[in-house]
């Protein structure tokens, strides 16, 4: 009789397998999103984007050089 019941509940083994599968997929997707797909990486690996942004910053900055021109001699 027990053997008969075991046969009926065989599908319960799928539950932990589905959980593990979902966890692995979620982990991979998260890692890809935070690195290669993130705003930080997509911009900081693009020369074109960085040139555009750094020029934008330089154009807006009223004091492009933050070092005093009065410094003289060897530090």
């Amino acid at each position, binding site marked *: 009789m027990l053997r008969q019941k075991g046969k009926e509940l065989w599908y319960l083994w799928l539950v932990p397998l589905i959980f593990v599968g979902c966890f692995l997929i979620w982990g991979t997707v998260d890692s890809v999103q935070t690195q290669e797909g993130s705003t930080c990486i997509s911009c900081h690996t693009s020369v074109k984007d960085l040139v555009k942004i750094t020029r934008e910053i330089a154009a807006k900055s009223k004091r492009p050089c933050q070092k005093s*021109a*009065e410094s003289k001699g060897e530090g």
Partner: protein
Amino acid sequence: MEPYEKVLIDEEFLDEDPHGEIACEACHGGNPKAANWKVAHKGMIPDPTYPNATNACGECHEEIVAKNKTNVHISLSGFSHLVGVRASTDKAVREKVFKGMKTHCFQCHSSCGQCHVSRPDSVEGGFVAGHLFHKTPPMETNCTSCHGSRVEKEYLGKNPGVPGDAHYAKKGMECIACHTGEEMHGMGKNFNHRYEVENAPRCENCHQDAASPKAKIKTHRLHRGKVSCHVCHSVTYKNCYNCHVGKDAKGLPYFKTDKSELGFKIGLNPNPNKNRPYKFITVRHIPVSKGTFDFYVKDGLANFDALPNWKMATPHNIQRTTPQTKSCNSCHGKKELFLLEQDVAPQEREANKKVIVPKDAVPRSR
């Protein structure tokens, strides 16, 4: 470096460097999901390793980070101690001196990131190689970008007419060959001066025979413990004078120093100790002057005379053969090599009385 180059990440960092597996915001904060760069950079920390590297590096490099606060490149304890000794004892005046020091001197510091990832902030930063981490900081982009005026020029032979250090010129040794990671990372103990750091390099760590009472070379045996290695084996080096700091009309900090001069002077050791028992040492004029902080407060360094500003030096231009090693009388009786009273500005004689060599103390010719 072009501004974009300073922050351009090499894709190799993401593929090859274990640090590239960590999400940017885990170390730098900011908001990676923001739609534009302005919002994305809000709250972003450019160097997450300074002043405290615990969050960024501590999880993996726990032991190094624990000691790092005592690393003199971070603590700048030498500056604080020496300026503190020279400063006025008046609390209000002292505070103004320290404010000046914080604005100027304390801007030259390092951090984990400013050695292993970027050039130091004091030379306007920028990734050394696309955010890749270097286990050993490159000498030319990191060490000498700060230690450029004196050490670099001496070591690489950039002072006109003066040869570079034999350790570099003949053996190609870079800074790290002597100044190990252990020294750079701190010992977990505070020191008042870089010369007190217990694991700092010593010539005899490698040149054991030269420091032995049974040294093969007679002059090593004769001078052992009496003169520092540099007295015989270094050549002309740089002296700096009269540093003044202040802020310009725009509020930007500046410094001004008088013209540097090349020279070579042997002085008395003002503080003989177990590690440096020598009577004679090489001395270099350092930039501090009585008026260094005049912009912030008059007579800030009221106790200027408490310490010499002809200071023990370990010039980085070691040679096997120097003008001093040619014969006994290349040094003995050669008064011009010694720091005599006449070599010291009258207003600095009191401060340097312990290093000035009295004429009758110059070793007699043979």
